[in-house]
């Protein structure tokens, strides 16, 4: 990390450490989660979808029902409160799919903060609806035209902005990557997903799932679910990365399966890179998984063999998206569909009667243009 940002990172760490031990902060966050975000999110069992995956039971943790339509709001509310505590008046954010940008713009409106969102030019096109949402909420959206014009370049631009405006600006990073304290702090704000799930499963069904599963781009929704289950040795952790056009092509975002350890954006983790350490462009049909890095805690869980990470192709994800829509009447985000496809693909490896809890991290409304084109509902497509 550049020296220019060390003071800001130290300030953030100190503010967060104090806040999480401050009962008034904890109470304010809990109240906002309840009365603004709509927590706890429910769990839905989906038997018709489960039938596609063999003789297992499948449960969905419905983060898609949160305010703004994805899990991203959990972290944003927490960091927006910290922004106020630090006396800063402006937030900047990067976004891929636009869900984190929308959540950040939402929190900025709620708390009266100025908000600038950096978004790769490629992503502003494939997620145009979310660009409109952010603008409606009062945020400025800056299309990033450098590099691969996707999420990693949006993070580069946000870091450049932060270096220049660190006095009044908080960088509201949206995933569990980046420099310390972001990976830990963002995980903590999302860990509510797993803690709620664990309690709900025990209370409503009387058992813990055999597997908890989530899609992994940067890895925030997955770590938010996994964290509460780390000590439950009998609960397997499955993460599904974007294999794009295939793991053996150059067009994928399967960082944990195909990457090598390196440093990007202040985090040491698996990374898609060439032999010179140049970051390689990732590819996924889902903007939110289109990132060549991954949160360092996922690298750690992989190396420990505590979690397993599999690749899911664009086509497999799109078929699963359609399957959940048509069997259960729930339209997931394309990102989330990677986890659904993973369960269809690997569910049969489990013993009969096993149960899987999937983090349904986001809803698919934002993806209707991509989906419509893909399935030929809107003009030409497959």
């Amino acid at each position: 990390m550049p020296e220019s940002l060390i003071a800001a990172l130290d300030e953030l760490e100190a503010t967060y450490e104090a806040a999480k031990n401050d009962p008034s902060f904890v109470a304010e966050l809990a109240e906002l989660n309840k009365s603004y975000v709509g927590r706890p999110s429910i769990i839905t069992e989906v038997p018709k979808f489960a039938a596609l995956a063999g003789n297992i039971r499948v449960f969905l943790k419905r983060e898609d029902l949160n305010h703004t339509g994805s899990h991203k709001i959990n972290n944003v509310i927490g960091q927006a409160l910290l922004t106020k505590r630090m006396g800063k008046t402006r937030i900047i954010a990067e976004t891929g799919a636009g869900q984190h940008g929308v959540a950040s713009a939402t929190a900025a409106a709620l708390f009266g903060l100025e908000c600038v969102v950096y978004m790769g030019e490629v992503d502003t096109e494939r997620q145009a609806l979310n660009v409109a949402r952010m603008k409606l909420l009062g945020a400025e959206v800056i299309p990033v035209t450098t590099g691969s014009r996707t999420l990693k370049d949006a993070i580069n631009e946000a870091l450049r902005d932060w270096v220049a405006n660190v006095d009044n600006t908080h960088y509201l990073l949206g995933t569990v990557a980046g420099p310390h304290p972001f990976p830990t702090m963002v995980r903590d704000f999302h860990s509510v997903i797993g803690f709620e799930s664990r309690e709900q499963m025990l209370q409503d069904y009387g058992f813990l799932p055999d597997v908890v599963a989530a899609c992994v781009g940067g890895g925030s929704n997955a770590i938010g679910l996994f964290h509460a289950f780390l000590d439950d040795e009998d609960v397997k952790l499955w993460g599904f990365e974007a294999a794009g056009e295939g793991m053996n092509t150059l067009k994928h975002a399967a960082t944990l399966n195909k990457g090598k350890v390196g440093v990007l954006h202040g985090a040491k983790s698996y990374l898609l890179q060439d032999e010179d350490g140049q970051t390689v462009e990732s590819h996924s049909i889902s903007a939110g998984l289109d990132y060549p890095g991954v949160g360092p805690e996922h690298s750690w869980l992989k190396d420990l063999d505590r979690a397993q990470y599999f690749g899911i192709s664009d086509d497999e994800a799109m078929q699963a998206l359609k399957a959940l829509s048509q069997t259960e009447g729930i339209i997931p985000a394309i990102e989330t569909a990677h986890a659904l496809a993973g369960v269809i693909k690997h569910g049969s490896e489990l013993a009969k009667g096993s149960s899987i809890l999937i983090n349904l991290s986001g809803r698919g409304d934002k993806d209707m243009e991509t989906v419509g084109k893909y399935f030929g509902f809107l003009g030409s497509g497959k």
Partner: protein
Amino acid sequence: MTVQEILSGLDSRDESALIGYFPAGYPTSADSIEACVAMCESGIDVLELGVPYSDPVMDGLVIQEATEMALANGFKLSGFFETLKAITSRVETPVLVMSYWNPILQYGVQRFAEDLKAAGGAGMITPDLIPDEAADWIRASDELDLERVFLATPSSSDKRLEQVAKVSKGFIYAVSTMGITGAREDLDAKARTVVSGVKATGTKVPVCVGIGISTSDQVLEVNSYADGAIVGSVFIKAYRDGGIDKLRNVVQELKAGN
């Protein structure tokens, strides 16, 4: 001569120092060699040879576009040390390599340091590596007697400035402003504060100011309170717009501030 000897010598004679940045491989390796040699011949005192990188978060648009072009034109680390050697064999000016950390990490810190030394390099500037995380590089540079430049910024605490001063050799890179590389009309008053903060540690290592410097007046002003001015984007712009001749002119113009 080492960078530190050059800068200290200029300082003792009350002369200004100009440190110039240019990216290797821009627009091609052969072109960058000629451009760097021309800069040295035209009067820069220390050359800062950049390693193009895919994610240069401390750089503004001019350097980003130049390094992106170098990568698109096939820049590879395997050819980098030949470029470095081609320059050091033609000029007396000491050459520091400027690189983000991941390329060095992948190449191997020790191996990178050895190849840098063998190619006649004086040391390295590491913009996204802080002393706290530099143990491998400090060990390798000590062993090979290479200079290492760390950054001091307007937001660095006194304690951090002391740490930077303690481990830096060659010079200390005082970041003039909270921001990224690129020409600015007004140099931040913060530059003076950073320099005096570093000087207050009692260090003997020269302190040079970079980021935003684009005119001979600014070079002169910076040299009045620091030990050198670091210039990059303006040289790239000159080369981009008017080739080697324009580059020579701009170097001479900035050096003439002396």
